[in-house]
């Protein structure tokens, strides 16, 4: 029974499974390698994978289950809402949690959860970057903001609205659309009447690709920019030719990072497909967590937290450590543009 218990929590079934399953795979790959090399502190690492379906009420139970099972550290959760609901339980139990994907600024900035870390930059960073790029490079005067009414999307959109307004850009339209709707022609029609210079999207890529496609089919050429929910290869795959020219902010380009290349290859070897959403962030988080345990020499909460804040670790995202709030340093955002079917980082 002497193992390091590594929890992985997130949506592993249901409609959001595609955001949660890549993290499981990342953790599996890393742990397999670590265990093959003799484990950590002489112990094997044991994965405890628990589904929260991205629902806050389930996340509470998931967290309790992991805590009851004696988990040492947790990778997850995936959705901000579920993360928020679960954090209290981990905090009381003194367990470090690291999310690859929960981007609500509050989670770290509120200071309520010293046990929380993340390997993704929070939404405010992203929004500021979007504003900077839009005003300085694209020189937009008037924008429209759409979101999916969800926890993640609307949060992003609201931050964008705040920063764009501060920057003196007119926000001509701010509306939520229904996720999963079969058709967005009405909102696209409305967009085309508003004539914005840029459409900012807060939300995930499936809706984004539907909206972009419908814009282009209506012969609308307005630029479109999304957040990290859009910067996903599935977006290009799904939106196809309509993806061309779309901007998306996302974690800085790591495709030349040898660790990232290797991780991707491991995934292809093991599962025969390209990795999915948040894979790199999850891979890095797993490395960071395991490294912290190793460096701390135990699974003691304070020791692990201390290492996380101080020790630089080499990951697919680059060399990272965590600032006083728990946000990973050195993993800023960049703006990407789809060119010839690829996200190309814009300098």
């Amino acid at each position: 029974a002497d193992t390091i218990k590594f929890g992985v929590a997130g949506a592993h079934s249901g409609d959001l499974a595609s955001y949660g399953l890549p993290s499981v795979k990342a953790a599996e790959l890393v742990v397999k390698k670590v265990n093959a090399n003799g484990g950590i502190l002489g112990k094997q690492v044991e994965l405890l994978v628990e589904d929260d379906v991205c629902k806050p009420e389930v996340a509470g139970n998931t967290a309790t289950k992991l805590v009851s099972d004696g988990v040492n550290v947790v990778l997850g959760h995936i959705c901000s809402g579920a993360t928020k609901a679960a954090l209290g339980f981990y905090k009381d139990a003194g367990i470090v949690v690291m999310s690859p994907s929960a981007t609500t600024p509050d989670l770290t900035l509120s200071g309520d959860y010293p046990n929380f870390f993340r390997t993704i930059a929070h939404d405010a960073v992203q929004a500021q970057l979007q504003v900077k790029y839009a005003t300085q490079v694209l020189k937009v005067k008037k924008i429209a903001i759409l979101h999916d009414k969800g926890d993640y999307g609307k949060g992003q959109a609201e931050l964008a609205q705040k920063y764009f307004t501060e920057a003196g850009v007119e926000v001509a339209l701010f509306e939520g659309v229904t996720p999963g709707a079969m058709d967005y022609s009405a909102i696209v029609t409305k967009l085309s009447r508003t004539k914005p210079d840029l459409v900012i999207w807060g939300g995930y890529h499936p809706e984004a690709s539907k909206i972009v496609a419908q814009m282009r089919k209506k012969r609308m050429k307005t630029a479109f920019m999304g957040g990290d929910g859009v910067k996903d290869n599935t977006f290009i795959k799904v939106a196809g030719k309509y993806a061309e020219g779309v901007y998306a902010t996302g974690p800085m380009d790591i495709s030349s990072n040898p660790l990232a290349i290797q991780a991707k290859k491991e995934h292809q070897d093991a599962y025969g497909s390209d990795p999915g959403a948040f894979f790199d962030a999850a891979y890095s988080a797993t490395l960071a967590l395991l490294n912290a345990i190793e460096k701390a020499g135990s699974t003691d909460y304070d020791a692990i937290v201390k290492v996380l804040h101080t020790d630089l670790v080499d990951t697919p995202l680059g060399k990272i450590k965590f600032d006083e709030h728990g946000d990973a340093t050195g993993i800023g955002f960049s703006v990407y543009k789809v060119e010839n079917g690829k996200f190309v980082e814009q300098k």
Partner: protein
Amino acid sequence: MDFDYFMQLFLGGLTRGSIYALIALGYTMVYGIIQLINFAHGEIYMIGAFTGLIVSSVLTMAGMPTLGVVIMAAMAAVIYSSAYGYTMEKIAYKPLRNAPRLSALISAIGMSLFLQNYVLLAQTSDFLPFPSLIPDFDFWEPYAHLISSPELVILATTFVVMMLLTVLIKFTRIGKAMRATSQDKIMAALLGINVDRIISVTFVVGSATAAIGGLLIASHIGQINFYMGFIAGIKAFVAAVLGGIGSIPGAVLGSFVLGWTESFFTGYISSDYEDVFAFIILVVILIFRPSGILGKSETQKV
């Protein structure tokens, strides 16, 4: 200019309505015959889309010409959706024919969950790109900003399907048998109607309609995943009820009303409360016409 905007919203609502209608038609047929809210109908539509995608990808890779691919994919989708619909009825609904109606509803919910997760496990949870099966017609290019050629095809298909189904139900022998079966199964049997077969036929026809819908809609929005049927199913169900559940033209009209409501509300007010408004329209209409727009009012004599 503003008329142009109105027209765009009008046509957009019409397209959205047609999309709902293609699913609502099957819903309403199944409801008509066994008074079951077939929660899993949306999943049949999803399976149609998946089958279409799989077959078309395989054939494309095998080097078949586009037209052939489209035809083969459509046939496969229709055949498989029908087969799933047929099997589903035999497994999950037929044993429950004399059970309380709510039990059948729960069975349908279970079936819906099963089919979703079956596709999730056997295929993927990811969104998959769906090829655009309908090309942009050149002659239509001047009006494409109003309504695109694929949307035009969807509209036309909805119309044709509705007509065919209406003719089927109103004028053919099997249609008469369907109507009789839906009203009194024992009496229908006493008049020489094979009730089991009629119910199966209804599921097959309803599922085939859903498959056509699945293909067209998937090709219109360009993506599919295992979960696409659920929301579509709910919306189509609302549309079918709005129009008067059990009525074929009602399902189409209800879908249009729903489509327009959503479109105009988004266009002139705000899409934030689009669905809220759609449901309010539903409530208001049902308050004034408790059996839906074209529904039959209760004619049970006291």
